[in-house]
């Protein structure tokens, strides 16, 4: 694999060396619902165009459809402080799983990236005797929690099938070069550049956060983290990454995988409509939203946030209820984009014509095999008029 296909020349070069003074985080995601794969150039270009939203203390990428040759096996991307920690992890993994293949995650020396951890990937599967009554997925969750909370200096950063998370401390272009992101091909990509506010900028604290095939990138601050974390602990999910975002990945696993809620309902769990907005709803709707809020009040996410939550075949873009963080969405044929900034979507896909600004709490969902559409409420008036004429 080689470093090809980039259009590095168009990146805006900051000659003032003030790239550490900016604010906010930047996120970007797209899914090609036809399943067609795209190399990492587009996501790297997108996140790098929003470089000034971060400050070099964290960047990362999640890619889906990444390992077709191992599509039936769980791909564990791991970070270890040193080779000794990796040997310990290696022994642990071989004791608890059947390891099919393992190798270092290909990477290169990049100026500006200091003291990277040992990055390794394992392709593995649990054998039934090891799972002792747990489902396969629950066994993976249990093992990831155990490794992240009990093994010293080793962390599993992603653990899904046919997907992977690549992240670390650096600017988005540096992290991309470190992991050779443009060499990979995927039908869905998300990316992030971080401006850590309340918690340390360390390799495990970069986004995306993952568990099974979930990945989450986040801009903002989850003020309800304390209550959210305690609720997740009751369900066997331990927060170990020293920042708020990971709770969203675990909560997604709980309510969407284990409880089977569709993303549209999960959005109402994380960003429930305000009580007086519920008053305006029909009785049926009001009942549904009230029950959701009563059941899942402990994982309502409070505070300013925009997140992109992804799992195999599906991407959910969501902002907080009063939109204290930005989110733009756009569609071009089979591709759905969500981004912190509209300009970045136009930059990486100049053919995009339909873009819109979702409301706070409004889920933007892209699914493999479903052609994305601009929601009716956001379509330009001329188009609505045209469509209405067709139905008369």
């Amino acid at each position: 694999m080689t470093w090809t296909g980039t259009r590095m020349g168009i990146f805006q070069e900051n000659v003032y060396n003030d790239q550490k003074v900016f604010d906010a985080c930047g996120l970007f995601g797209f899914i090609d619902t036809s399943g067609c794969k795209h190399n990492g150039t587009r996501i790297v270009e997108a996140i790098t165009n929003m470089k000034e939203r971060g400050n070099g203390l964290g960047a990362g990428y999640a890619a889906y459809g990444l390992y077709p040759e191992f599509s039936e096996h769980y791909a564990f991307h791991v970070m270890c402080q040193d080779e000794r920690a990796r040997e310990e992890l290696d022994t642990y993994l071989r004791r608890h799983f059947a390891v099919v293949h393992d190798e270092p995650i290909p990477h290169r020396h990049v100026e500006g990236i200091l003291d990277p951890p040992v990055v390794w990937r394992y392709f593995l599967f649990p054998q039934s005797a090891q799972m002792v009554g747990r489902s396969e997925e629950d066994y993976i969750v249990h093992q990831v929690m155990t490794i992240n909370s009990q093994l010293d200096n080793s962390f599993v950063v992603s653990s899904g099938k046919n997907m992977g998370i690549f992240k670390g401390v650096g600017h988005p272009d540096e992290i991309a070069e470190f992991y050779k992101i443009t060499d990979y091909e995927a039908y869905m990509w998300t990316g992030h550049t971080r401006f850590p506010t309340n918690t340390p900028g360390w390799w495990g604290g970069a986004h995306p956060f993952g568990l099974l095939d979930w990945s989450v990138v986040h801009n903002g601050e989850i003020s309800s983290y304390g209550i959210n974390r305690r609720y997740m602990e009751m369900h066997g999910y331990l927060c170990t990454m020293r920042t708020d975002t990971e709770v969203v990945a675990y909560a997604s696993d709980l309510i969407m995988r284990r409880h089977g809620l569709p993303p549209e309902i999960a959005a109402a769990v994380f960003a429930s409509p305000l009580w007086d907005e519920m008053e305006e709803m029909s009785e049926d709707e009001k009942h549904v939203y009230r029950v959701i809020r009563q059941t899942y009040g402990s994982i309502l996410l409070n505070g300013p946030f925009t997140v992109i939550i992804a799992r195999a075949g599906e991407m959910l873009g969501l902002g907080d209820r009063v939109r204290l963080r930005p989110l733009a969405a756009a569609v071009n044929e089979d591709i759905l984009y969500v981004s912190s900034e509209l300009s970045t979507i136009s930059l990486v896909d100049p053919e995009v014509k339909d873009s819109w600004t979702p409301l706070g709490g409004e889920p933007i969902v892209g699914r493999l095999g479903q052609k994305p559409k601009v929601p009716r409420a956001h379509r330009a008036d001329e188009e609505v008029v045209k469509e209405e004429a067709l139905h008369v």
Partner: protein
Amino acid sequence: MSDRARMDMAPATPSDSEGEAVSIDAPGVYYKQLNEQLKRLADEGVKEITIFGLAGQRYLGTNLRIPVRILMHGVPGNDLGAFMDGPQIEVFGGVQDGVGNTMNEGSIVVHGSAGDIVGHSMRGGEIYIRDNVGYRVGIHMKQYEDVRPVIVIGGTAQHFLGEYMAGGVLIVLGRQLATDERHPSHYIGTGMHGGAIYMRGGVKGAFLGQEVGLVPMEPEDEELLEAYVRTYAEHFKMDASRLLDRPFSKLVPLTKRPYGRLYAY
């Protein structure tokens, strides 16, 4: 290489210079260099600058105090025209958040939609958005005697329109709304304590902020609306009489100090 030497290599060179009109290619150019170049060209007496290929460069036009005309293609970044004092900006496409942040004088015309907080703390000048706008548009706009900022929005606004508004004029035309359809904005004028919001057609009373009330239109309101709606229609080549075809709702603050008693004891 010293920073000075690197700045001299700024790639943003005018690609086409014709007397008083100049065009610039923006791809790959960092916003500070772009702003420095705009300043240099305006100081040299250039009357019209066209920028092509913008992709999120922030704060454009921020340091200009000269009435120069700037035409923009592509998508400029956040805080377009922040603190701007005189220029006329026209954008052929959509824009992001913070357009006209604390702008003092001049105009911004957008042939598309805009993001959140258009006219944040705006103190003067005019902004015309052809289509829709995001949250908290006109937040904390203010006015001083007859220096009064104006924002005209052709489509609809998302929530918290005119939040903490302290002065100025917001006009929302709701072009895509049917005759009996109401504006979808919630919490309009929350914390508002000055200025006026005019919305073509009706608004949902239940979703007005607590600090704002509907009042009857006076003849001077009609005059003001006609003038700004005509300007809007000229910018976007529309029929002004169609945009003035139905009554407007006028919203004003109920008190100048909505929270005067909140923290008092």
